[in-house]
């Protein structure tokens, strides 16, 4: 694990973390759409899963103190190998196996120089735009419920 960490430059790690985060938020429809649009479908061999299991969700006492176990969440994960030898990993909340298998395929395609731009343009960017739009809408809807206090002056001074 340490070797993997050292071998990967910091910027590359950030890039893949961002890609994995967006892939975890992609809907099944978005993933299937991207797969259907892919001109040359890669040969994919399953290595592990897709399999569903549990992740223990941790919180912190008081919000920032010692960790405690809050409860579990269903998580599905998969590892695939492209014929080029690139491995793709994916893990996402929920029990949708096909969605996570496709996510692993796109994780692998993102790592390959030849397909990274395509994955960025046709999957990651649209997901990023959708998530940002949804977040902005929610934030605006919440902001409309913000209380504006005002003081009423009563009587004469």
């Amino acid at each position, binding site marked *: 694990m340490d070797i993997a960490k050292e071998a990967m430059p910091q910027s590359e790690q950030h890039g893949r*973390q961002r890609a994995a985060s967006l892939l975890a938020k992609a809907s099944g429809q978005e993933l299937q759409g991207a797969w259907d649009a892919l001109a040359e479908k890669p040969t994919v061999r399953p290595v592990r899963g897709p399999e*569903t299991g549990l992740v223990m969700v941790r*919180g912190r006492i008081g919000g920032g103190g010692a*960790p*405690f176990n*809050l409860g579990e969440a269903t998580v599905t994960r998969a590892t695939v190998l492209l014929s080029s030898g690139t491995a793709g990993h994916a893990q996402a909340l929920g029990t949708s196996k096909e969605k996570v298998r496709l996510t692993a395929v796109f994780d692998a395609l993102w790592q390959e120089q030849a397909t990274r731009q395509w994955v960025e343009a046709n999957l990651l960017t649209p997901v990023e735009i959708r998530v940002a739009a949804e977040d902005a809408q929610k934030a605006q809807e*919440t902001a409309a419920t913000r209380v504006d206090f005002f003081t009423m002056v009563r009587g004469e001074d």
Partner: protein
Amino acid sequence: MYVAVKGGEAAINNAHRLLADRRRGDRSLPSLTIEQIVEQLGLAVDRVMAEASLYDPALAALAVRQSRGDMIEAIFLLRAYRTTLPRFGASVPVDTAGMQVERRVSATYKDLPGGQLLGPTFDYTHRLLDPSLLEDLPVDEPARRPAPDEDIMRVSDILAHEGLIESDGEFPDDHEAGDITREPMEFPMPRDLRLQALARGDEGFLLALAYSTQRGFGRNHPFVGEIRIGEVELEMDVPEMGFSVSLGRIKVTECQMVNQFKGSAKAPPQFTRGYGLVFGQSERKAMSMSLVDRALRAEELGEDITAPAQDEEFVISHSDNVQATGFVEHLKLPHYVDFQAELALVRRMRAEIATRNNDGGMQEAAE
């Protein structure tokens, strides 16, 4: 000697078939979909996830549908399902300060960074039944207002600046968070394990205990420092990748209760705290949890233990509604042999008393 009695197979099969029919109800009405339950009965789904201790809205909705809306039955179903799955690991602790806040209110500060955000609340409604919901009328889109780019600061951090409040609960660095699903319960129980038990505890039970502390049974003078509801990023370390990655987002409710102060010869007085964190949107539960968490810290804070809510073993041992319903409801299952034994015992005792009385009566008559 023990003689097993068998039977009832046909009756059981037909009862389950009847249950399926009654669950479905009138066939001329459309069947509920999982999506409808998730979208329109979301708080029921949230309660099932919280008390089953398993975050999965679709499966929780399935459980609600299968249980005909019986919440504890739904919780039981989801709890049973979780036992069939392997554990992949534990998440990085969620960062509630970085939450995408959908609601945030404080009862201690009027003007605070981020403001009072009411969100989708039942508060300030008149609790009048709305006849317009008898029909499927169109519903207005929510109002919008530009969202300021401002951090929604924790109230506990505001008080902490002046040292007016105790810090977030700390353990030594080498303390590994305990897990009540893996280890048998032992008392006294550290606070991390208590919080895990309370997070899955029955809302009604915790609500009643929280209420009892307010009525004087383990009083601790609470103020809601802050309640916040919203989505947090769930991350996990993935060894194959060598770093932590996002698994998606989950909705949680957090309550920071600020309680009566405490000082000593060494430390000046400062407010104490209770903490609540619950899956989904459930502020009644998060508030109750934080009140009970604070009550259960009585011993740690040198308070007299006088009330049920302060009694760790009493509270934690009876807060799990799946365990509770299992033990209470098992009473309706056949106890024919046990009861026959008790019946025979009572008959024998009565016969002995009758014999004694008869003997006594005859002696009296003889005298």
